[in-house]
């Protein structure tokens, strides 16, 4: 339970972190809250040669308003997200999702940027971002590009982040007063979702129903066509190919996706 040897560099600014990233390339991993990366290193599933610590970079944290969007710094902690009045008013689904990540200790260490870059399809925040139709800012020495949540998650623990790019901020549309639904199915309170469903404004995202957080597009289409929540939810698992593990096989996951989607939609109506 001890990581393989590695070097550690504390970045002084976002620009410095990006410079370090371009310098070390694939040998480096970015450390923020460390609550996904460090366990993987201790289990030796990850063995980066260099850790670039961005946790104390002031310009990467914080929550602000930019027109119709909330802009959330990458190192904003889950606990800060969950308790932010701004987020609770303008993106309550995201605040709720953040309040369900792990346990209180994890929520005081883990960061939104870290969770999204880690890209665990069973995690709360990736599903929430896809449901909200948010986007991420990816910054490199060459500048910043904006990638929609739907395009960001590329596979199991894989994202659109290119070598030398740092996830610097997250953008979500402001929707004060818009009803939403969020369902996370777990055996124990602090577990990852066996399946999750999040719904808002006609969009439905599912956790742990594939290698990335996926949209329940058939159900979304049915809603758009005027179907009831119950009828739309019956289509929630269409097109999904979830993995199997000791908690759930494929058929059970698809069943849960339908039940949880219906409950999320019923919460809205």
């Amino acid at each position: 339970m001890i990581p393989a040897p590695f070097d550690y560099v504390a970045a002084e600014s976002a620009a410095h972190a990006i410079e370090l990233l371009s310098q070390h390339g694939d040998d480096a991993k970015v450390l923020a809250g460390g609550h996904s990366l460090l366990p993987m290193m201790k289990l030796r599933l990850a063995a980066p040669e260099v850790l670039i610590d961005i946790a104390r970079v002031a310009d990467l944290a914080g929550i602000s308003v930019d027109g119709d969007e909330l802009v959330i710094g990458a190192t904003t902690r889950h606990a800060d997200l969950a308790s932010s009045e701004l987020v609770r008013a303008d993106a309550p689904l995201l605040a709720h999702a953040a309040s369900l990540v792990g346990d209180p200790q994890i929520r005081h260490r883990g960061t939104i940027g870290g969770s999204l870059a880690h890209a665990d399809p069973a995690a709360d925040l990736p599903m929430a971002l896809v449901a909200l139709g948010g986007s991420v800012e990816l910054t490199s020495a060459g500048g910043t590009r904006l990638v929609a949540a739907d395009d960001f998650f590329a596979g199991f623990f894989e994202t659109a982040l290119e070598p030398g790019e740092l996830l610097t901020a997250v953008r979500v549309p402001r929707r004060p007063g818009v009803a939403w639904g969020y369902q996370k199915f777990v055996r124990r309170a602090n577990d990852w979702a066996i399946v999750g469903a999040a719904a808002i404004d006609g969009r439905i995202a599912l956790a742990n129903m594939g290698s990335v957080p996926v949209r329940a597009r058939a159900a979304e289409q049915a809603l758009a066509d005027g179907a009831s929540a119950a009828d739309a939810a019956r289509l929630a698992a269409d097109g999904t190919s979830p993995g199997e593990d000791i908690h759930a096989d494929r058929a059970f996951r698809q069943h849960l996706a339908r039940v949880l989607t219906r409950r999320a939609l019923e919460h809205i109506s």
Partner: protein
Amino acid sequence: MSILGTRVLRTEDPRFLTTGGVYTEDLTDEALDGACHVFFVRSPIAHARIGRVDLSAALAAPGVIAAFSGADLADLPAIEPMMAGMLNAKMTRRLLAIDKVRFVGDPVAVVVTEDPYQGEDAVELVDVDYDPLPAVVDFDDALSNETILFEDAGTNVVVEFGNAGSLKPELFDGCEVVVSHTFGNQRVAPAPMESRAAAAVWGEDGRLTTWIPNQGAQSARDDLAKMLDVEASQVRVITPDVGGAFGAKFGADPEHAVVAWVARQLGRPARWTETRFENLISMTHGRGQRHTIMIGGSRDGDVLGYRLEIIQDGGAYPRIGAVLPFLTIMMATGPYSIPNAEAIGTSVVTTTTPIGAYRGAGRPEATAALERALDLFAAEIGMDPADVRRRNLLPPFTEPHQTAFGALYDSGDYAAALDKALEAAGYADLRAEQASRRASGGTVQMGIGVSCYVEITGGGDESGAPQENATVEVHPDGTATILTGTSPHGQGHSTAWAMIASEELGIPVENFTVRWGDTDLIPVGGGTGGSRSLQQGGAAVQQASKELIELARERAAAALEASAADLQFDPGRSAFAVAGDPDASVRLADLAKDERLFVHSIFTAPGATFPFGTHVAVAEVDTETGKAVLRRVITVDDAGLVLNPLLAEGQRHGGIAQGAAQALLEEVVYDADGNPLTASFADYPIVSATELPSFELASMETPTSYNPLGVKGIGEAGTIGATPAVQSAIIDAVAHLGVRHVEMPTTPMRVWRALVEASAQGTDSESA
């Protein structure tokens, strides 16, 4: 007023809650200065022949002092299974595997480094050639003997307790209803907070001193001596604070011996602390039985016949787990009067982690099988499960009751426990609420599980009658010391033993020091396990204290120039006084001034005691997702008189939590190739507070005559009673939908699948 029976706060807690315990890894004893660190290379393959073991790359790694493989320890004797007379003695083990590995986690080599960080890097450089053999994970694969773990043994069967040929076909003659079923009592991980560890150093006198977290230093010493092929007198085991054990830290493991061997080989102290990953794959697991039950009786609820056939998974090397069917069989009919009953068991080896003792060890399995059988019978005849139980319980008895399976129950009033638990639960109201919820057809349904049990605690070992020793000494400064052969690791013996002696000696509880776990100081002791400590270790403390008073009386008589018979001991002043002349008195402490004042005493019990009780669980099940939530647990646990309700409740709480965990959550899982799938706490779901309700404990105290304290064991009641109660509650919540059984752990997927199957059968029978 007597201190016995009162809620004395744990004297252990101020230290644990402030400076913290000192566990083996924390030790800073100067004898351990300059210790090297041992790290184990463990097999990643369930079953294989070992080819070349290449240590060269590891030896060249930074900080590596030495590396050894099984061949280096080949001079040491093969380890025979414990109770080798009973178990297949050819199923032996080497400290480090030599020819074959037999489970993922089997140690094959060690790397020794200057600091522990270097060891974890260096073990990755040890190159072992494995020639894989088929894994044996399933009970039936083991029984088929197609792949045999121990070629010399010629079979995977470790031991048989009876055999199928002895079963009586006529057992169920005259039964109007007979129900049979096969189900599992799954393998679970003890998962103590403190993993295994060792620190070892050899003195210039050639003696080994080793610190090991354990449940009894004396048995750990004897195991180590055997494994290292030295005399027991050459070994001193010291027990630091122990962070949980649950049966899995009894005795010593091969790893403990290897650490000692390394220390001797290198001539310097050696230390080892296993990782959580190692702990989950190589500390002994618990349970691991499969039951086939058959139960029969009359339509009005009389159980007339019961048959239990057990297969026990012993894991790769037979240990205490392989013996557990013996206890399961002994307790097969539990608290019930069943005219015709028979039980047999077979233990097998598989290419999985060895099975050892785990809280209850054999008795939870007996209760789970029987209570599940009774529920299936009740469902078949359409009778309330509580009524079926009441109808078949043994009547109250105060003289020992002999069962058909050789158990001698000391005292019991099983129906009173059942009625008390049902009343505390509000059983009739619960059933009414259940009926209305069923009628309303809501998504979340409610179930009630009832489990009656009797169990065996404080049994003797191979050497005969159950006994324990204690030494009580009063010092001139008014303090006192107790030496005990038990070995607490959370139970609170410092508090309890002080209470018992305080009652006799009139010395305040806070003036006692209780010591255990040093084989030089306390060479004899039975340790703590099988819920034996209070009824034997506590009774020994009481006996020694009473004898100390009599010894002191003689000295007091001399000091006061009075006849011993005229002296009265006043515990309130901890002093002797001459009857009729209270001013002529002498304090107990003063009698220790000129000569040490102490007594060593051995308490021998007439036999094991049999605590009993009833657990009621209330669960809700989401019939769409299959998720079960435990809402209430109400228990009556009668373990005789209660010395300290605070400590007893703590034992009940922990046991109930672990029992509920087995019913709801926990299971060690292997894939077909013998790879462990639950080797971290991300995958092995130990129960947490969020999954448990507050427990409702009703009290009931039926004294036993087997010890002067009137006490029985309470440590394991929780897992014995709660496991089937919780499982039954979950099944009961969906029983009206046609579900008769759900395997443990009752995962959402299992409950959902049972509902789907019941629904399909319901549809079939409607259309038929």
